[in-house]
């Protein structure tokens, strides 16, 4: 008899994926409070800590992040024979959605590494304050770090929800091109927003 395992893992992959997409977009919007000023940012951070959202929610997201990574990694070709096959297929067939999958794999690896470092650094140095964040970014190293992480996360998350919609049929074929356009706009928007946030942190005087 066929086991339910592949099906259940696919469900989990979808659910953890949705959680992370929603989290990432909210995360960007919360960070955007810095545009209003450190006061707004700090009171939002206080609010999250008062209700233990950072202390409890942080590790919860970290767990979801880890589970999602292990599930998705099943799909990444590990043997060089499979990698070669995929590459030669993608090269022969210049096809946007096939290339987007490669972008997703590469961005996943970057996000796994940098995302884990980022979460560790932020969550082991609670409370979150605008001053601490700004000091980090003003070192310059963290600026480079975020400049890399930001586009990778946004690409990964953007392609991620598009692909989920396709696979489960929230996005029907008639809506595919509109959905893809929305995905490009949204990804661009969040990358720009992230850059503005970084610049704002950079210019924050302590």
């Amino acid at each position, binding site marked *: 008899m066929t086991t339910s395992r*592949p*099906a259940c*893992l696919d469900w989990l992959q979808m659910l953890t994926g949705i959680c992370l997409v929603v989290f990432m977009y909210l995360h960007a919007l919360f960070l955007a409070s810095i545009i209003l000023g450190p006061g707004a940012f700090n009171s939002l951070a206080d609010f999250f800590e008062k209700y233990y959202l950072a202390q409890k929610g942080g590790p919860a997201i970290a767990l979801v992040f880890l589970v999602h990574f292990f599930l998705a990694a099943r799909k990444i070709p590990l043997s060089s024979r*499979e990698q070669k096959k995929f590459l030669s297929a993608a090269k022969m067939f210049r096809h946007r*959605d096939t290339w987007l999958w490669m972008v997703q794999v590469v961005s996943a690896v970057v996000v796994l590494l940098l995302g884990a470092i980022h979460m560790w650094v932020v969550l082991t140095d609670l409370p979150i304050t605008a001053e601490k964040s700004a000091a980090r970014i003003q070192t310059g190293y963290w600026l480079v770090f975020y400049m890399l992480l930001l586009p990778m996360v946004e690409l990964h998350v953007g392609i991620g929800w598009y692909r989920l919609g*396709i*696979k*489960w049929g929230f996005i029907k074929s008639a809506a595919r091109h509109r959905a893809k356009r929305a995905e490009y706009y949204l990804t661009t928007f969040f990358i720009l927003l992230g850059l503005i946030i970084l610049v704002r942190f950079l210019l924050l005087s302590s």
Partner: protein
Amino acid sequence: MSRKLKYSIFRYNPVDPDSKPGMQEFFLQETENLNLFVALNILREVQDPSIQFDFCCRAGICGACGMVINGRPGLACRTKTADLPDQVSLLPLPGFRLVGDLSVDTGSWFRAMNEKIRSWVHTDKEFDPQEQEVCMDNRVAEKIYELDRCIECGCCIAACATAQMRVDFLGAVAMNRIARFMIDPRDKRGHKDYFEVVGTDQGIFGCMGLLGCQDVCPKNIPLQDQLAYVRRKMGWQALRRLMPGQA
């Protein structure tokens, strides 16, 4: 002025020990309404009688002439040279056994796939030739017909990076077949039975949604929507199986 087209054609004869895989170039003046089916036949008739390729219906019905045309799997008989640039590269469909040059054996692959997913109407009803035929709802009949238009050309398999990477992946064509039986009232199989054949990583859960299949299918079969349909049905079936008291 008509163009002179350059054709780069993959040449390799696996049964000839002296044959080495490589591309061979041919030149041919373009004529009006020329398609690749005619072009290849002219090349074979007047330039090189040894070129191997498959054709039968020359009308997009038999599915024999699938090949990779400038990087895209498609039917040669349905490809007008007017839609192609001055240089045309032709490769055999990847993922199938090579017979020689552009000719591949899609038949064995499709036979194995159809056997694996048990691609026929399962019924206990005894056929009675005297009885009046049971009428099928027209809407259902049309839905089934829409999916039944697949000509087994193999383009969706050649265009699927997942299928190329994992040889045991059944591909969009198999999911489309299953979707067709799922909506067929004559088939007594339930989702439980379909789950047995496609509720796997070789089946629907192996599909990564790259949509190469959807974008090349020469019959414009709505593969994307069928894949999602099968995934949802099989996803629910898996949850149902986890409930206590369910098989």
